[in-house]
Every structure is written in C-alpha cells, then in structure tokens.
C-alpha cells in the first residue's frame, strides 16, 4: 500500500523533483561546498604546518589580513587590473569581430549556415594547448609570421624606426590576441542564437518607413540583440579574466594576471589563506556582472 502511494507520488511530482534536484545536488557538492572550504581557508592564518594554515590557539579564528592585503597590496590590485583590462579588451574585440560573423550567419542559405557554424566550432576539435603553442610559434622572433610583419613594418616606416622583429611574445597584446582567438566562438554562438530569432520582416518594415540599411541595423537589429551581446560578453569576459594558461604561456611575467597569482600563492608561496582570499575576491568580482545580467534578463522576461 505504502509502496503504491510512493509510486503515485513519484509519478505525479517525484520525477520532476528528481530532475530539478539532480543538478542542484551536483552544484552543492562540487561547487558550493568546495567554495565554502575556500572561503574558510581565506580567513585562516598561514602557518608552516601541513596543511599550511591553522585556526585558533595562538591564531585568531577569523583572520582578515589576507583580504586587507588583497585590497591594499599593489601586487594584487595590479593583477586584478591587468586581468580586467585584458579580459575587457578581448571581450570588446570578440564582439566587434563576432557580431558581423554572427549576423552573416543569419543571412546565408541554410546549407551554408550549417557549414559555417561547423567552422566556428571546428577549433575545439584540436587541443586548446596545442593551439596556444601554435600561436607561440607564430609570434616568436624567428617565425615566418613575425618576419612578415617585421618586413611590412620596416617597409612602411622610415629607416630609423626599423626593427629586427615585432615584440609580440610575452606582452599583453599576445595574451589578448590568443584570448580573442580562443573565446571567439563563445561570443559568436549566443549572438547568432539571438540574431537568428529576429523577424526579417521587421527590417523590411523599418526600411519601408524610411530607414537606410545602417539605420535599420541601429534601430531594429542592434537593440533586439542586446541579450545575445550580454550573454556572449559574459561568456568571454568571465573565463578570460580568470585565465591562467594563456598568460602563463604568452604573457608578460612581470605583469601577472590574477590566475597566475592564485597559482603562485598556492604553489610556490604555500600561502593557502592568501590564495583563497584572492580567489574569493575574483569570484565576487565575477558574480557582480552575472547578477546584473540576471536582473536584466528577469526584466526582459517579465516584459514578455
């Protein structure tokens, strides 16, 4: 009897709860709990023990010194600034490059669209690391690519300004270049999704009412694609700001990004509380734009 009641409950409501609950359980166990551990570590005190932090005893239960260092020590502030700058520039470039591509995708025939969309995702089929190494090869002083750029520059400028090679490796330029290359699909796909939904008769209506094509774009296409721009922008900005591999491989070691700082604090410095505090600060920095986006989306959804 009770088994039958359970079965009925499961059929009516249980399976939906299971479906909704499973990802939540996953997130709680694999994201929220580890994050709480990191938060707990961020208020501990660094000690020469294993693991290298302690609470209580000679040390306070809550030690806010790592956080005050995050906010006052120039090293961390500069790293945050570098991260945000690089990620922001990469995001803007991705938008400028990705928008025309996404718009183009909506204007070609169905069969071409499939092929071009495939090409957008194609880079993911090779290892990310391999692609970064390929860029390192291209940007290096002795590469044919660098040589070509050097010759081009030397051809354009007066003799006094001639250079032996273009200083690309180990610069923020290199970091941004590789990030744009890596994250471009994350911009194109949400943009394409939002542009593809637009009704082409709206363009005709605007044109019919006296708008030239560029005005049609500004008045009709662009405002309606804002959700896509925000989604794409966040998909690029958030991982780019926390990027570790690209700046370590092609970036300027004297201008570290925040990911590198976290790695160094955990690793070489063995200062886990400090590393945790930086990680928590980074997360807070990323959560703010996400929350703005969610509110914007809730407003847009509510308007429908």
């Amino acid at each position, binding site marked *: 009897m009770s088994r039958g009641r359970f079965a009925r409950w499961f059929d009516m409501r249980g399976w939906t709860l299971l479906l909704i609950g499973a990802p939540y359980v996953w997130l709680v166990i694999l994201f929220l709990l580890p994050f709480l551990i990191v938060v707990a570590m961020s208020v501990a005190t660094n000690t020469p023990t294993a693991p290298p932090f302690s609470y209580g005893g000679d040390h306070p239960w809550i030690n806010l010194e790592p956080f005050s260092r995050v906010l006052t020590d120039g090293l961390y502030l500069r790293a945050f600034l570098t991260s945000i700058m690089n990620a922001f520039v990469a995001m803007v470039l991705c938008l400028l490059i990705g928008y025309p591509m996404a718009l183009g995708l909506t204007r070609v025939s169905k069969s071409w669209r499939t092929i071009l969309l495939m090409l957008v995702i194609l880079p993911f089929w090779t290892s990310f690391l391999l692609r970064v190494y390929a860029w390192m090869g291209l940007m290096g002083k002795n590469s044919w690519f660098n040589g070509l750029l050097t010759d081009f520059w030397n051809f354009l400028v007066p003799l006094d300004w001639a250079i032996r090679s273009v200083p690309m490796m180990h610069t923020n330029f290199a970091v941004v270049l590789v990030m744009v290359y890596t994250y471009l699909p994350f911009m194109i796909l949400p943009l394409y999704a939002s542009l593809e939904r637009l009704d082409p*008769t709206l363009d*005709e209506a*605007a*044109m*019919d*009412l*006296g708008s030239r094509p560029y005005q049609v774009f500004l*008045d009709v296409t662009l405002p*309606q694609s804002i959700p896509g721009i925000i989604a794409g922008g966040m998909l690029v900005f958030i991982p780019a700001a926390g990027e570790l591999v690209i700046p370590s491989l092609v970036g300027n070691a004297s201008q570290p990004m925040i990911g590198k700082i976290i790695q160094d604090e955990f690793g070489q410095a063995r200062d886990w509380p400090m590393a945790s505090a930086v990680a928590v600060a980074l997360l807070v920095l990323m959560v703010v734009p996400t929350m703005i986006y969610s509110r914007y989306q809730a407003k847009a959804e509510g*308007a429908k």
Partner: protein
Amino acid sequence: MAAQDDAPFLRIEGVSKSFGTFEAVKNVSLTVGKGEIFSLLGGSGCGKTTLLRMLAGFETPTKGRIFLDGHDMAAVPPWERPVHMMFQSYAIFPHMTVEANVGYGLKHEVGLSKADRAARVAAMLDLVQLSPFAKRKPHQISGGQRQRVALARALARQPKLLLLDEPLAALDKKLREHTQFELMSIQERTGVTFIVVTHDQEEAMTLSDRIAVMDKGEVRQVGTPTEVYESPSSRFVAGFIGSVNSFEATVVGREASHLRLDVPALGGEVLTRDMPGLVAGQNVSLAVRPEKLRITKDRPEGPNCLAGHVKDLAYFGKDSLYRIALPGALVQAHAVNARRGDEGARIADWDDAVWVSFDPSSAIVLVD
C-alpha cells in the same frame, strides 16, 4: 469613392518578375487612380504579394516599369519611396512602445520639430483609437490593436500609396467585419490610395473600388466588384469569385435580343442575354450563380425551366442552400428564407420534385 484623374496615379507597365526559372508575375499592366481602394485578389502563389513587394521596392521587376504620380520608381530604394506597407504579420517593433512604433517613420522627416512629430503621432493614434495605449509595448495589446498600430505607423508619414498585405487575415470574423468598415472610413478621411492584397473574395468585394483578379502571375480581370461578380470574363474568374453552376454549351443561334444555347447537361436548350461576337456552333460555357436560380413547386411561366428534385439542403438560418438533381447535372441554388416558421417555411424538402428556373439575363455566357 474613386476620383480618377486623367493621368493614372499609379501605372504598372508590363511588369514581370522571375525567381530563377519560376515566373511569379507575368507581364502585368494596371492603372490605379488617386484615392482608390484597389485590390489584388487571388489564391496563394498567384503573384499578388510579389507585385505588392515590387511596389514597395523590396523586389525589382525583371521586366517592365512602375510609375507613381508620374515618376519612374525603378531606381528608387524602398526607404525613399512615398509608399508604405502594412505587413501581414504587422511587423511591429517589439522593443518599442506603441507611440514609438507609430512615430518611427517620422524621424526621417526632415524639418519636423519634436512637437510637430508628437502631434502627428497623437493624431494618428487618435485616428485608430489607440490614444490610451500610447505607452504600452506591443505584447501588452491585442491582435486587433496591433493591426491598428501597423496601420497608424504606415499612415503617419502620409504616404502617396498605402500597401496592405492581407490586412484582415489575422483577425477573427467579428473583428474582421468591423475593421473592414473602419479601414474604409480611414481611407475616406485620409484620401490615401490603398492597394490591398487579399485571398478573401468577400474582403475584396466589400473593401474595394476595383479588383484585379490574379491567377498564376497574370491579371485575369480588372473591374468593380459588381463587374467582376456579375460579368466575369472567364471561367476562372466566375469560379474564383463566389460559387457558380457552370455547364458546357453550344451556340444554337440568335432570336430577338436573346441567344439560344444547347446545354446537354440541362437536357435541352436555354435562352440567355445576347452576346456579340458569338456564332452558331461555337462552344461556350453557361454559368449561373446559385442565388439567381429560382426554386418553385409548380412550373413557372417563361423560358429556362428545368424539372428536378431536391437532393440535399443546408439550412443557414437566413438562407438555405439546395442541391438539386436535374436529369444531367447537380446544381446549387441559394434561396432566402423570407418566411418565418418551422419546417413548412422552406420552399422545398428532401426529395421534393421542384422546378428550377432562371432569367435569361441572369445567365453568364463565357467563351474563355
């Protein structure tokens, strides 16, 4: 009503449009007078929408020319044409308020001050009775209201020509009838020339001053609703507009002012109004509209009386449709139920023997 000048306001000259090997519009020539409501009527794929899109400038004619108010429109892009369109889907900008939608075209009007613009928008909203909804977003108003926003937006710039693509198709029946009259009264007040594309013959009949019936990219007949209905020029037009009983016939000869036809399906000869140009022995079609057939129990006086029996009848309240079996054909006859009552009010019942008759002047003789 149509105040036609000597020089036509809109002249379409031998316009054709091909998409690849498919010819959507074939050598269409039409003239439309200023202030006219002109309908392009036809089934789907007849080329009416393509013709409309060429007037708006979204498609370029493969051949032929379009003149509006004396100007060749060939090189004029859509955004410079004094022609506005009301789209079938209404195409209202979802991210703008009702007010901003209506005022959208006005922002391109050079030398129109902000206050003038607001006044024009207000006047337009007033015209379509949407003033209380000015600040709403399109998703907050009903389908009928959206249709009126589309109309106000298209009229706001005072176009020379307003194109309406299936203006009433998306509305339900009650609203459609109401909107039909509203469209006509707005047209009268603004004096703008309307070109209406529709597949609905009733809509075309009630709205238009003149109708062009289209089929497979060609214009089959142009005329007033009465002309197109009462004097169709071809079997296609007769069958497309309203319903019709049509039969193969052969011309026997002329007598007095009448034409005598042999109609095998009706089991003999019938008299029709004379039509010039026909000779004895020529094969033609005889067409009679269902409402022009009289049904009586007794044999009436005069020509064109046919005996049959009621095969089927459908009661619609105000009228009834009878299907009457004649010796060689099944005909449809429409009769108004003028008397009120029970079953007795009907002219005839199932299987009753009846006489079907029609006036010689009511029959249509079609050559094409």
